[in-house]
């Protein structure tokens, strides 16, 4: 039997060290692990390197809390609510480093790590100026297909120190299920060195027996399991609650005025008793 991994937010946050690279679940305004992000802010984590495909609210909150040294993402956006209110400014001021990536290459890098490989090729990409950026950063290299001789971009494995994924339900060992859109979360779980699952519901393993579907994570992948009902708020949780766009817009307005911290403490941390 694998060991029980149940932990509080405060205990699980100890798995993330200052300076760690981190990736989170969801997309812009959906299924971000906001409870855990609150815990990271509360714990005062610094110098995190944030990696994701299409992040939104969770990323800007970490940026506003001063937790980040760098970001690697294919797109960082507040969608109809405009540019990332805080991150945009920090990047423009040169206070946070930003490495722009592209979706297929992020996926290829995560796949390489998930499959225990040093690199993966990716189709497309050639011809974009992103290639220069990444060759300089040492994250991509243009190689030749050993069979056809064709030029192709090789993406170095992206193995975040920690993945934090908010799921629908999970047993104490880390067998979890995400419902609805997955984005790359099942891949992130497999690519990261450490995995923290926050879940709307903790279930008995027996409740997962006879489930005819694949698990989003297994006990072997997971280091901590945290019960965090409502843990994606104000982002959406498929089947359970919609995005709270009023709260997101409110955050955006505070952040544009440089008062994100107020909102984070008054509205987000307070929800978790901090």
């Amino acid at each position, binding site marked *: 039997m694998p060991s029980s991994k149940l932990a509080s937010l405060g205990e699980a946050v100890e798995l993330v060290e200052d300076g760690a690279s981190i990736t989170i679940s969801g997309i812009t305004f959906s299924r971000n692990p906001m409870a855990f992000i609150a815990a990271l802010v509360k714990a005062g984590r610094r110098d995190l390197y944030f990696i994701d495909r299409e992040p939104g609210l969770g990323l800007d909150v970490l940026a506003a809390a001063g937790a980040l040294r760098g970001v690697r993402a294919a797109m960082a956006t507040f*969608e109809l609510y405009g540019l990332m209110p805080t*991150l945009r400014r920090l990047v423009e001021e*040169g206070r946070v480093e930003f490495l722009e990536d592209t979706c297929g290459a992020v996926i290829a890098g995560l796949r390489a790590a998930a499959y225990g490989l040093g690199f993966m090729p990716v189709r497309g990409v050639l011809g974009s100026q992103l290639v220069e950026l990444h060759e300089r950063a040492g994250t991509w290299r243009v190689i030749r297909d050993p069979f056809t001789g064709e030029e192709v971009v090789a993406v170095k494995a992206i193995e975040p120190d920690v993945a934090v994924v908010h799921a629908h339900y999970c047993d104490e060992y880390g067998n979890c299920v995400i419902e609805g859109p997955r984005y790359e979360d099942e891949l992130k779980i497999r690519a990261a060195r450490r995995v923290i699952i926050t879940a709307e519901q903790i279930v008995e393993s027996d409740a997962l027996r006879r489930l005819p579907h694949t698990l989003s994570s297994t006990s072997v992948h997971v280091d901590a399991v945290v019960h965090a009902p409502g843990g994606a708020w104000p982002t959406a949780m498929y089947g359970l609650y919609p995005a709270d*766009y009023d709260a997101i817009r409110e955050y955006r307005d505070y952040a544009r005025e440089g008062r994100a911290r107020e909102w984070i403490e008054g509205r987000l941390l307070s929800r978790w008793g901090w």
Partner: protein
Amino acid sequence: MESLKPRPTDVMVKCLAELIRDGEVVYHGLTSQIPVLAMAYAWRRLGRRFTWLSVSESNMPVVERVRVEPSSGGPGTEPLSVGVVTTMDVFDLAARGRVDVMFFGAAQIDAWGNTNLTVIGSYEKPKVKLPGGAATAFLFPLVKRILIWARHDRRTLVERVDFVTGQGRWRVERGLETLLCTNKALIEFTREGPVLRALHPGVSVEEAQAESGFKLLVPEEPRVIEPPDELGMRIIWEHDPEGLRYLQKYG
């Protein structure tokens, strides 16, 4: 329900909708409220039948129930999906040449259809840090027809983009269809150059050219994009009752 009078944004929706063909595999990404409305318009007003996929990982949603939200990537926009189809799965299909249509935005676009979603100014010292190209650089070489929507002015339609996020030239040199719907016109990027294919009602060739930072080719009289009719406008409003499509200020 607000005014049924079509605005330039609504004409953009129809312009994009008309570029979707029967039987195609169509995918939209983030901040794509206008493409979502174009897909709904193509389905309901133009009767086009295609495979509807999206960054919200929906598949064949009940189109009548589609509603745009401030995010086009969440579970709210396209309910009642047939199972879940991940974006990874769709991108793999694209890499195998099986995705026909994808929509992209652009902060800048040049005469080759190269797009910039990365930065205004230099990458190292950004004037404006843009959101990033998302799948742009990955999908530009892979998808059969790329439909771009953007504002029609000289800050957007530029001689030279500050950063080549989307490799339009790569596409155009290989004869892959690359089209741009602005709030004034429909432009197709070709080996010969950007061709002015159609105009919004009341926009002249001269105005379209004056607001472009590159030379438009006009090999034949551009057609006029008829604005959505009353039924079309009712459909657009049904899918966007709050008028979120106007937030991007295309008019």
